């Protein structure tokens, strides 16, 4: 049996973090091989090493039996290895043909007619149809995906890496995509598929490698495994007892969401009829792989995204018609996912940032004016709450490290008596101690009658810190059965849609 790819002992460190720890990967030629694992397990990093976009610190690499060392992706492409990343590299202002040949024009002079002929030949072979002179902006997500695959064929890639190729596709388009991948594999190409979705693995792949926390956990032939076993391998076999054991007595409903549907960035239905209830004192964790609709849920509750249908009720009052700022006035608080882009103004001082989002509330505002001394006092309280390390409240936010910015943003959302805390990865970039103190802070406001909705990609964190955990998959919310409400395995399977 001949191997298209053999990776041996690949180690990659980013600062003090080991993203890949002596990972081995063997992929036979002419098959579809899946790489699965949780967020941050190292799947994409491993593929980027294979593609030459990252250089590994240790380890060796063989492509089609020849030892290689890629300094850049250009060298990888020359050796026949190509990758379609999660975020497509299509430039919307260029035509489809220009996108296709970009970077592989084959000489300083463009020969459009010859290029179009070859493009058509490739497309016909794959059963695709393209208007080559149309702007790439007119492509649907599925069309863009197909164009990305043609880009690999144009470069004569024999090993093709696809990172979450179906993330943006409808089920029908995904089916069509796998048909073309199957035919490519039959013709001798080797396909590496990075995915979160177990049904895809079980249905379309021959072999699968499981990564967890930067380590290769196992490699299986798909025929010899099942969804339940894979889910267990992905999230880690041992079931840990939840550390949060305080008796939980929920009070009156704080948030009632019913039949909520929301469109995503690309116009696809990202949230499909989600409904749930959140009671006073309760912390609800939302598990799920990235892009399952958590972002849309979070933003629509905050009033930042329009809903297609459904209703959101906060403490008995409908907020459907309320602006984000009215919802904040009603007690809603956000810990946004991306503190850098969404949570702070980097060039502003800590003082000024202390009021961001709360600027209309007392004591920050007195009528239409800002109370500077109250703001200063609040800023120092916010900084103290989770021990934010800073050199002075008048220094710009950009002088803080990411973790300290996160502490500041989290503490800010918990001040001024919140009723509902919407937290998207509240412990992002924090060490264990910081993580625990932020969750303890959330717990404390909940003890005082608030409720919290926590989105995280780390299932263990949710199981430890939340009263209840539900899973999102493909825009739908799945609640585990009551007797297995904190069962890691059950929720792990709900997350990847293996039920």
């Amino acid at each position, binding site marked *: 049996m001949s191997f298209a790819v053999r990776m041996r002992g690949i180690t990659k460190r980013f600062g003090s973090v080991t993203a890949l720890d002596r990972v081995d990967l063997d992929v036979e030629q002419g098959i579809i091989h899946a790489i699965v694992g949780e967020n941050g397990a190292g799947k994409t990093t491993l593929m980027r090493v294979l593609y030459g976009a990252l250089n590994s610190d240790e380890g060796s690499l063989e492509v089609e039996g020849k030892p290689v060392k890629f300094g850049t992706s250009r060298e990888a492409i020359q050796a026949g290895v190509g990758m379609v990343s999660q975020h497509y590299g299509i430039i919307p202002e260029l035509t489809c043909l220009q996108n296709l040949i970009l970077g592989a024009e084959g000489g300083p002079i463009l020969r459009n007619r010859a290029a179009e002929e070859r493009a058509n030949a490739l497309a016909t072979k794959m059963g695709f149809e393209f208007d080559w002179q149309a702007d790439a902006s007119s492509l649907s997500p599925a069309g863009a995906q197909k164009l990305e695959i043609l880009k690999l064929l144009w470069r004569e890639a024999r090993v093709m890496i696809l990172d979450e190729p179906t993330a943006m596709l409808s089920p029908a388009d995904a089916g069509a995509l796998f048909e073309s991948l199957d035919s490519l594999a039959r013709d001798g190409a080797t396909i590496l598929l990075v995915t979160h979705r177990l049904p895809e693995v079980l249905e379309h792949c021959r072999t699968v490698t499981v990564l967890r926390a930067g380590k290769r956990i196992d490699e299986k032939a798909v025929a010899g495994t099942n969804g339940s076993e894979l889910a267990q391998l992905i999230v880690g076999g041992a079931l840990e007892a939840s550390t949060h054991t305080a008796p939980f007595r929920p009070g009156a409903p704080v948030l009632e969401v019913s039949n909520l549907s929301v469109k995503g960035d690309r116009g696809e239905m990202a949230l499909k009829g989600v409904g749930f209830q959140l009671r006073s004192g309760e912390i609800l964790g939302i598990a799920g792989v990235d892009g399952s609709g958590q972002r849309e849920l979070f933003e629509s509750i*905050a009033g*930042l995204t329009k809903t297609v249908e459904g209703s959101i009720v906060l403490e008995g009052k409908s907020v459907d018609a309320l*602006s*984000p*700022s*009215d*919802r*904040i006035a009603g007690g809603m608080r*956000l810990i*946004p996912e991306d503190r850098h*882009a*969404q*949570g*702070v*103004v*980097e*060039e*502003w001082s800590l003082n*000024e940032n202390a*009021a*961001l*989002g*709360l*600027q*209309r509330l007392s004591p920050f*505002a007195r009528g*239409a*004016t*800002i109370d*500077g001394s109250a703001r200063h006092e609040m800023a120092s309280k916010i900084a103290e709450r989770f021990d934010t390390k800073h050199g002075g409240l008048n220094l*710009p936010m*950009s002088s803080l490290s990411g973790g300290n910015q996160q502490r500041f943003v989290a503490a800010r959302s918990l001040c001024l008596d919140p009723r509902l805390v919407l937290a998207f990865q509240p412990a992002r970039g924090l060490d264990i101690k910081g993580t625990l103190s932020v969750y303890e802070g959330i717990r404390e406001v909940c003890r005082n009658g608030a409720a919290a909705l926590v989105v995280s990609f780390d299932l263990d964190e949710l199981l430890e810190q939340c009263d209840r955990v539900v899973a999102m998959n493909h825009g739908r919310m799945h609640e585990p059965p009551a007797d297995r409400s904190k069962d890691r395995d059950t929720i792990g399977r709900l997350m990847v849609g293996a039920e």
Partner: protein
Amino acid sequence: MIWRLVAMVAGACAILAGAILVAHQSPIESLTTLIHGSLGSPTAIAGTLRESTPLLICGLAVFIALRAGLFNIGVEGQLLVGACSCAVVAVRFPGPLGMVLGVLVGMVAGMVWALPAALIKAYRNGHEVITTIMLNNVALFLTSALVSGPIKDKTQSDTATSFVAQTTRLPFVYKTQTVEINCALVLGIVLAVAMAIWLKKTVAGYELQAVGANRVAARFAGISPQKVTVLAMSISGALGGLAGAVQILAYEGRFYDGFSPGYGFDALGVALLAGGSAYAVLPSSLLFGILSKGGTALQIDGVPKGITTVVLGLLIFIAAAIRYRKVTSDA
């Protein structure tokens, strides 16, 4: 880092000296003429302040938009429609009523002129630079057409409106035979101070600057970037219109074809040079006023007036480079 800056300033001075030498003049002598012509006598100073006034108000107009992250290139057009409509109203209603109405109408006209750009930016994400440039052209030719026909004073040969009555004019705070200082300057200074306080002390000012500094974070903070965009452009347009109205009522007395020598465009430099503080628009506009007035003196001396534009260009260039250096060293 500081050496690069010194080198840059020295380079700029060398380019300038070279340019003056090319015009067959002595650089030192030219500098003396420039300073003398703009600051050398009470009359010269008064002239400089007069020149600074529209630059100050227009500079504030550009400045407030910049704080909201908008680049209002359209102040020139807003000034023209403000001046033109003010002149028409002030001629029709002599006396204090005409003064008040003229100012109000000028501001509303400027605001209305900025509104299409504001709405297109806010709700269709059309770039305000493009739309305001286009609106400048419309304003220029529209006012030119009006003053050539419908609102032209038929009793005279100039393409201009009639003069506004003396009773309708803005009063002088200080006036002798040779020196005049109009209350328009005081108005401009008050506006600068008021704007600085408004931005620092009010929730609305805070929200406007939040949108300018980080639009996404502002949205997550419950601020509507759309509303702020419309608000900031409206204030900006109203100030542009006010600058035009003040120009009529304080100094020019009538609207004519070719009314503005490009105050609205120079104001872009005024605001950029001022950086992040409304107070800084005061010295910045004064500097532009000095160079403009001194440039006229240079011209009489045989040095092309354009040389002062070179100076301004270099100043803005250096200011931008300093600011850029700060940004990159933070990162």
